[in-house]
């Protein structure tokens, strides 16, 4: 621990290498009387990309700020890389790489200057820092842009530089708050590919928060945070398996009436979400045929799909993903 400054690449003391990246137990957080986190417990393994999915206001950013050592932990236990967050925050910081939702770059400095400034803050300097910057800019495809002012870079490149910065000092744990905010879908995929690269090549553990469902699909495991509670944790496939087969959504002028009729006729339990009737069931394709035959006059449209994470969210909370938080 005393040699952090000289060994920016050496990441974790061996004694703690077997500890999970993140272990959260029974964490609560309140802003006055409003509960932002309610009894949240989860673990992130070494070398895992964990996505914390939830609508805005669901508690993601609160948890992120706690983990990033920016807010005191009031209730519960958190260990990062085996260190107790409450008592050893300053021991954790050198091993933590953080990407914020809002850019933390200095727009008036060049790519290289931003990285050098960051390296100095982490106790790196001189030749080792120069070499490390070279490695990182090359890895993230920023070598040609080294001398350019950050304000002249595209949004995608700026996000990439954020990642380069967070990774410069060789952290064992990366925390990212809505990392792909403002990126188009292509750049978002690129960004996820870089995270996967860091996981595979450097064994980095990653926790990212997101409200973008496609982004969560790329995580090894996903936790769904809704109104401060962790309502589900699992791989994207495990979560989708909970939905119980296929998803059939029926558009109709009178959803309440159709909901009742479908229930009476087929014995299943449709729900009304956002003005349409929704049924989760195995062999949804035959149900589509049956329901159209039975209620042709009332139906405007029917969609049939394999469950997505949005369906998981609806299944667990009874809300559409987008309307529930905003």
């Amino acid at each position, binding site marked *: 621990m005393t040699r952090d400054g000289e060994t920016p690449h050496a990441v974790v003391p061996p004694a703690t290498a077997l500890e999970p990246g993140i272990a959260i137990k029974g964490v609560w957080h309140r802003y006055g009387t409003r509960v932002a986190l309610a009894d949240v417990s989860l673990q992130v393994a070494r070398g895992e990309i964990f996505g914390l999915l939830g609508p805005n206001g669901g508690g993601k950013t609160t948890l992120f*700020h706690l983990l990033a050592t*920016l807010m005191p932990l009031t209730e519960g236990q958190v260990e990062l890389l085996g260190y107790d967050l409450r008592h050893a925050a300053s021991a954790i910081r050198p091993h933590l790489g953080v990407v*914020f939702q809002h850019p933390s770059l200095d727009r008036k400095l060049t790519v290289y200057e931003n990285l050098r*400034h960051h390296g100095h803050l982490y106790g790196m300097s001189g030749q080792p820092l120069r070499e490390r910057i070279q490695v990182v800019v090359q890895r993230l495809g920023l070598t040609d842009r080294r001398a350019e002012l950050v304000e002249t870079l595209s949004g995608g490149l700026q996000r990439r530089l954020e990642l380069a910065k967070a990774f410069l000092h060789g952290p064992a744990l990366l925390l990212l708050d809505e990392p792909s905010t403002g990126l188009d879908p292509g750049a978002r995929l690129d960004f996820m590919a870089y995270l996967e690269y860091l996981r595979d090549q450097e064994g980095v553990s990653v926790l990212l928060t997101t409200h973008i469902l496609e982004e969560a699909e790329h995580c090894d495991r996903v936790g769904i945070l809704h109104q401060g509670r962790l309502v589900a944790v699992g791989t994207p496939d495990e979560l989708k398996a909970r939905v119980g087969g296929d998803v059939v959504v029926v558009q109709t002028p009178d959803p309440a009436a159709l909901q009742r009729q479908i229930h009476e006729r087929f014995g299943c339990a449709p729900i009304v979400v956002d003005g349409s009737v929704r049924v989760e069931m195995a062999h949804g394709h035959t149900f589509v045929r049956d329901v159209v035959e039975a209620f042709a006059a009332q139906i405007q449209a029917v969609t049939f799909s394999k469950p997505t994470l949005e369906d998981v969210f609806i299944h667990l909370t009874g809300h559409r993903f987008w309307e529930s938080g905003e």
Partner: protein
Amino acid sequence: MMQSFDDKASHALRRAALAVLTLWWREMTRFLRQRSRWGSALAQPLVFWVLLGGGMQASFRPTDVPAGTGYMEYFYPGVLTLVMLFTAIFATIAIVEDRREGFLQGVLVAPVTRTSIVLGQALGSTTLALLQGVLFLLLAPLAGLHLSLGALLLVVVVLFCIAFTMTNLGLIIAWRMRSTQGFHAIMNLLLMPLWLLSGAFFPLTGVPLWLLWVMRCNPLTYGIAALRRSLYLAHPDAVGAVPSLAPALGLTVLFGVVTLLAAVYTARQSAL
């Protein structure tokens, strides 16, 4: 055991120095790249000096200022201090913007103590203020002041202390602020009166008793006094009735230290 403790201490000190230095360097680089900032702290005091100095010249007849001292000359140290004040204000506004735009959050999660962060910010702003102050010193002959090298060095030391104190005051406010609008309000209510009631604008003599005490309690009064004493190092008689150099300078240094401690305390209490 002792050896390893010393190693640890010197290692920690080196890291702290590196952090302070890199934060300082960033302030310099940003300033050099934002040309619009170059003149901003100089132009307004200069206009004040020329217009107010010229306008008040005829009616300025204070009791305890030696005969023959025009208002342009009397006001010169005040304007020099105003340059420090404005630069400190601009620099601390930049820190509020750092927070708003997100740069500061990256610094706050780094393994750097708040003390280092505050020192880096304070020394950065102070350097900028000092650079502009020295530039303004070139105009001293226009005020009828001719400085020896010794006086010049002393003036620079005093300006450093004044700028450092001002910046720390700015930082104490900036670390509590979320928006720059709030900062402007506080500046008008606190920092400007601090300057107005320091003997920069008018002497302490002949003012009502309550005002005299306000001015006596104003830390900046002693900064201005130290500045006048250094500017007139060779002609102490020409200064008029202001505190003498040693106590004035001592108090100015003391206020610098106290405001720094207060700024560090404020930064430590600040969550994000």
